[in-house]
């Protein structure tokens, strides 16, 4: 190829880079064999501690992933393809994403779902931005117990809008939102109200059904647990305008925090204000059904600075994983997983509640995955007990809901999934029991 190009060496191809900024190679070791790399990776992996039982959760769960999910998403044709700019050779991705939009819309009981966002937190940030595009107002109402990091992401997503936050109360007896307090805080500049179900106390909140009627025409944004929707009333049924969720539980592993999946559904009338990619059904030249990226005029590559969002690459493969997960489980399977989760949290509560000095599930409501547990000893002591029993879990409430740190200094989250066993709960009870 060099001779075809009439050059003497590859260096000639870089002659346009001024000497002053030239680099001669990278100061990193030379490449290694696949054998050495794999051995190194195994040895680094073994630096992570293995626990016998895990009660870690707070929005990220190590749920069971059916083997079908891994099989499908590891297929090279899905894994190594690009954003479907050429629809004729991307019908696989396009149809799968159209199906994802459909499945999620059914799960949320919402009109429309976009083809994915980065993760739950950024999806929530985008939802508030979208609410602003809908009504142009400047106050967002949030639950007082929202995760601090989630709030931080909302702030960074709305920094260019001049959005002001306000917080409504969560009842300390039921663990549900305080509808009167919320009502009192809604004003004429209220852009959006964010409700969570389950909320950050782990409670499945029946009060969300009453929010719509007290917030006027503010945009109602629901942040939900998608697995819970197997048995829990979906956002579309309590009047949500936008519903968002972290989809990690639907066929993905905890992945140390990523990749995750931001799910975002909304009312049909708002679709042209919505961020992200969206797939539509159309026909091809011979009238056959075909799928294509659509409403692209909302997007950055067409609309540039006037785009609805800057999203380009999103989480297509994770959307596929979530679809395959739901398709594999089916309605009965998802119901069972959700139901089993509630069952295990209730077993966890009864098991721990019998222990002296422990208060498990201090609120009166129904818990889904995350159960706050108040313990009678120091964080160090708790850590010691859990470690020696081989148990991961006990995320301090103050670390994830910082404003309530003073009120709940000794409360820790222990979370369950359908994988949680009675044996694990017994081990936890033993570890927490005062000797």
């Amino acid at each position: 190829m060099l001779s075809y190009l009439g050059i003497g060496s590859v260096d000639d191809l870089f002659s346009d880079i001024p000497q002053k900024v030239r680099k001669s190679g990278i100061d990193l070791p030379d490449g290694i064999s696949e054998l050495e790399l794999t051995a190194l990776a195994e040895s680094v992996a073994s630096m992570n501690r293995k626990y016998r039982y895990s009660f870690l959760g707070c929005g990220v769960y190590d749920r069971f992933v059916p083997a079908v999910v891994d099989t499908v998403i590891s297929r090279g044709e899905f894994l190594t393809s690009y954003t479907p700019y050429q629809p004729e050779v991307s019908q696989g991705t396009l149809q799968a994403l159209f199906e994802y939009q459909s499945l999620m819309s059914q799960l949320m009981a919402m009109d429309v779902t976009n083809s994915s966002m980065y993760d739950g937190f950024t999806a929530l940030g985008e939802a508030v931005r979208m609410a602003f595009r809908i009504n142009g107002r400047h106050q967002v109402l949030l639950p007082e117990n929202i995760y601090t990091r989630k709030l931080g992401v909302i702030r960074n997503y709305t920094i260019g809008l001049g959005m002001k936050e306000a917080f409504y109360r969560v009842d300390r007896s039921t663990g549900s939102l305080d509808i009167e307090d919320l009502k009192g805080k809604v004003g004429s500049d209220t852009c959006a109200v964010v409700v969570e179900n389950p909320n950050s106390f782990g409670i499945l909140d029946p009060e969300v059904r009453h929010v719509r009627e007290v917030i006027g025409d503010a945009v109602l944004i629901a942040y939900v647990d998608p697995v819970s929707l197997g048995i829990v009333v979906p956002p579309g049924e309590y009047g949500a305008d936008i519903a968002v969720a972290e989809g990690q539980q639907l066929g993905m592993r905890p992945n140390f925090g990523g990749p995750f999946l931001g799910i975002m559904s909304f009312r049909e009338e708002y679709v042209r204000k919505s961020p992200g990619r969206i797939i539509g059904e159309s026909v091809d030249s011979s009238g056959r059904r075909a799928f294509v990226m659509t409403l692209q005029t909302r997007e950055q590559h067409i609309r540039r600075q006037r785009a609805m969002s800057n999203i380009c690459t999103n989480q297509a493969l994770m959307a596929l994983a979530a679809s395959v997960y739901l398709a594999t489980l089916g309605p009965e399977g998802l119901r069972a997983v959700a139901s089993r989760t509630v069952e295990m949290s209730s077993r966890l509560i009864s098991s721990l509640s019998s222990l002296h000095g422990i208060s498990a599930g201090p609120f009166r409501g129904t818990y889904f995955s995350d159960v706050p547990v108040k313990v009678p000893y120091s964080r160090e002591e708790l850590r010691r007990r859990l470690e020696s029993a081989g148990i991961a879990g006990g995320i301090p409430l103050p670390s994830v809901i910082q404003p309530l740190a003073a009120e709940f200094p000794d409360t820790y989250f222990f979370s369950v999934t359908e994988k949680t066993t009675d044996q694990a709960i017994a081990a936890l009870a033993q570890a927490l029991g005062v000797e």
Partner: protein
Amino acid sequence: YDEPLLSEISSGNDYHHVESGAAIPESLRRKSLDIPSVAEYDVVRHYTRLSQMNYAVDIGMYPLGSCTMKLNPKFADRISSMPEFSTVHPLAPEESVQGNLRVMYELQEFLKKISDMDAVSLQPLAGAHGEYTGILIARKYHEVHGELERRREVIIPDSAHGTNPASAAMAGFDVVEIPSSPDGMVDMGALRAALSDRTALFMITNPNTLGIFEDRILEIADLVHSAGALLYYDGANFNAILGKTSPGLMGFDIVHFNLHKTFATPHGGGGPGSGPVGVRGELRDYLPVPVVEYDGKAYHLNYDLRHTIGAVSSYYGSFLMHLRAWAYILYHGGNGLTRNTERAVLNTNYLAKRLSGAYRIPYKPLKKHEVVVSSDSTGRRAQDIAKYILDNGMHPPTVYFPLIVHEALMIEPTETVSKADLDRYADIMLEAAREDPEGLKRMPLNTAVGRIDEVRAAREPKLRW
């Protein structure tokens, strides 16, 4: 295949799920859940058939300009699927996740060496997200220096990726677009004219989207810095310069990396991406938190940076992509990464020369990672050329971008393609330039579906079953 929708398959779910009869209060209960009920054998067949309707890097050359679709190595798939990495919870105690933190720390260090920047955050989840993070850093920088009120403008060349202006606008800045010079590079006069004490940031990519290296980059950096603004490097085209130059040497303040481009993490049909951000010296304290640090004994998550912009995503970024990029960099090593860039640039220039007979190739002939050709010299539309390529079993270039080239076809072959495939690609494109223009408009004929009515899709949106 004429593949039905999942909702049209009624084989009845037969999956063996967990059992539970637990109930929740009536006030919380869902009445019905109508997602499809499909047998496992049909789920497998449905998705296997769908997959075969996709083109992919694993199928062949995928020369989408500015997308850097190179082979996603299988060793990285294997490593990223090790459960010891992937089942780790982000809130597990720091001392129990030393393996994962080591990967992240080392990747930060690798990216520093590659870019000659001083600090790196792996948190952003895609290139555009990295841009937004970078712009938030610039915003905070000006805020800390008391200049945010005044510095409301971000300057962007007209050849830039669309994400640049979109991200700037999202952070509340006004976008000032400047035209390219006749040589396809930054118009220095226009830049000088645009820069002022209202300028917060100048965003460019180098080589730019024409595949041309901006050789006045040091002068640009001086101008921008003299105006009190910061200089942003869009890393989408990084595959052109590994080991040859770096944003650090070129005077950039902020840079994002696309791990799913330069470091070959798979694109997954549109994500997940990963867009780490690097900064120079004094901006280190502005990075999103946490960053990973190493004290010689253990790895730590540091949440305590003085001017941090805070959180831009749920946790630490797309860890499995960090892991893959880490593996990719170790496998290739410093020498291999440089060689990859050399091959990528050689392939581009070879292909450019082969095409130069029939296609107009605007601007100077020496290209880096990609070449933009115009089909206007052939009398055929770029989109039609693209469909001809589809019908010949390969993937077309990016079309109609950058916007400043008429009937643009933007071609990036990357280093993972054989000369035989380059020649085949050139042959196909040269054939297309001779093909009957009317016939071209009826193509593709050999694909799963023919040309799609995109107008109808947008006018009467059908977005779900």
